[in-house]
């Protein structure tokens, strides 16, 4: 089906018809940036960490072939099934085949921008499989039948009154109740039932360690962990660029990630999955989907160093005033404009995002 997209400028113009809402969106995200600045300023060696992380990623990209083989070898030895997907379709088919093998029609999924990129939810929906996004923000946009508008804060464009109304419609909360505490409790109860019923859990991957064959998943809500630990099958989906060489490098990346993302010193949960739980089946899907091609480009290779902290969104003056849905890529915002596979253009406006991204130090 051919879809005539409106341009970013047209969608941004629509977004800007409500100036007060733009101000609210802008201020909310700016506050996250301030939190990041405060957290970063408390680490004396911040810029050194960024530089080290950037160099580690340079090394990874220059040796990705060997690191992936090393990772695969260790993951297999750890009892994990490893799959390779050349593109989004193959990724979706691999995931679907695992689900079908277990005769499951209801799965829980924690945040994974890769599965957004691959359109996994729509694909599985077409196969009559219900996917429940368990991150609160992702569940909200899922109920609203929208894509996330921010990779770390998926429903940052929603006001609490609107979420109250959405929950009233879908979860039966009292009309007019827009208290975040109350709405979160309602979502907790609603999603708890899905966790307890979930036989298969999909997670994304923040880092995959070549040396140990483990994957690390970071969340604040604990939704990835609850999903995985209550399910019989765990599928972790990752882009091939998520590899880092050694376990000790996690220190550098985890020190940067949450501080850059939300200003927290670390996410509540940083879970290292090295071997499946006793009796559990664990799969890792390694996805290329344009990444190996991107690796060849001197101009665009650096984008493969991105750790998806989302700091560039919060500092981007255009993103803050145009909203995540004005972009046309699975990952919105400034980084999304260069991240999307096959997309070889870049918005030419200012570059504060580059000074904030942990990976693009000098």
């Amino acid at each position: 089906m051919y879809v005539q997209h409106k341009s970013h400028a047209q969608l941004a113009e629509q977004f800007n018809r409500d100036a007060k809402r733009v101000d609210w969106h802008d201020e909310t995200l700016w506050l996250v940036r301030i939190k990041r600045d405060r957290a970063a300023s408390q680490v004396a060696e911040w810029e050194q960490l960024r530089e080290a992380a950037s160099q580690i990623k340079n090394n990874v990209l220059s040796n990705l072939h060997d690191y992936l083989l090393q990772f695969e070898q260790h993951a297999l030895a750890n009892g994990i099934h490893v799959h390779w997907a050349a593109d989004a379709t193959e990724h979706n088919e691999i995931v679907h085949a695992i689900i079908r093998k277990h005769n499951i029609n209801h799965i829980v999924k924690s945040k994974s921008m890769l599965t957004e990129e691959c359109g996994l939810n729509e694909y599985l929906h077409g196969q009559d499989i219900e996917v429940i996004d368990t991150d609160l923000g992702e569940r909200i946009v899922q109920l609203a039948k929208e894509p996330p508008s921010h990779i770390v804060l998926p429903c940052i464009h929603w006001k609490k009154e609107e979420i109250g109304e959405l929950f009233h419609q879908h979860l039966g909360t009292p009309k007019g109740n827009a208290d975040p505490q109350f709405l979160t409790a309602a979502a907790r109860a609603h999603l708890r039932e899905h966790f307890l019923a979930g036989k298969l859990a999909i997670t994304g991957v923040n880092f995959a360690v070549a040396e140990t064959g483990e994957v690390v998943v970071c969340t604040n809500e604990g939704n990835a962990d609850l999903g995985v630990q209550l399910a019989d099958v765990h599928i972790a989906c990752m882009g091939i660029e998520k590899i880092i060489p050694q376990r000790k490098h996690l220190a550098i990346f985890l020190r940067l990630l949450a501080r850059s993302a939300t200003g927290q010193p670390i996410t509540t949960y940083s879970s290292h999955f090295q071997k499946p739980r006793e009796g559990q089946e664990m799969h890792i899907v390694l996805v290329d989907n344009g990444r190996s091609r991107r690796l060849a480009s001197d101009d665009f290779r650096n984008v493969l160093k991105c750790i998806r902290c989302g700091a560039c969104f919060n500092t981007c003056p255009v993103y803050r005033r145009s909203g995540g849905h004005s972009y046309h890529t699975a990952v919105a915002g400034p980084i999304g404009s260069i991240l999307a596979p096959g997309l070889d253009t870049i918005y030419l406006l200012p570059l504060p995002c580059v000074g904030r991204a942990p990976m693009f130090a000098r």
Partner: protein
Amino acid sequence: MSSREKILAALKQNQPARQPLPDAHTGRTQPGNLKEKFIQALTDIGGKAVEAQGWKAIAAALREAFPAPAQIINTIPGLNSEFEILSSKFHPHDFRNVSPAILQGQFGVAENGAVWLTNEQMGDQALPYICEHLALIISQRDIIPTLHEAYDRISNSTYRLGAFIAGPSKTADIEQSLVLGAHGPKSLTVFILD
């Protein structure tokens, strides 16, 4: 050619000239008083730190915070005279009413208030994530400055699940309002043993 071979061939062809791996030990700060830093960091992220003189003190504090009929599940031998020890009679789904689960942590990280533990300390891997409230116990001498020292300690050990847990489960997805207890424990108490 399989996708695996195709991807690997493309990578081999497209990856740039080898770049060196930098020294992973660049940039470490040594916070002053590690215990104070840890307590501050944990408090800042919504957790609670309690300094305790011994097992009896911990048991008393837990009894006070979670009076009967709260179901307390314990995985620590030092507390088995006080609280029911985790046994195989439980199904993971049973843990949702547990307040609190008590687990031994391996060490705490002063810069971020995180506690490291592995499946060995969890009893059941679902327990620390599904319980209503969580209590972790670390020794004061096991507080280290940063994540660099943390990975020095973890070294090349193996585990099924290794986890940093830093504070209670939380979300700020609704208008950036912080709410504790998103999906997992609504509170986290870390007991620091002298």
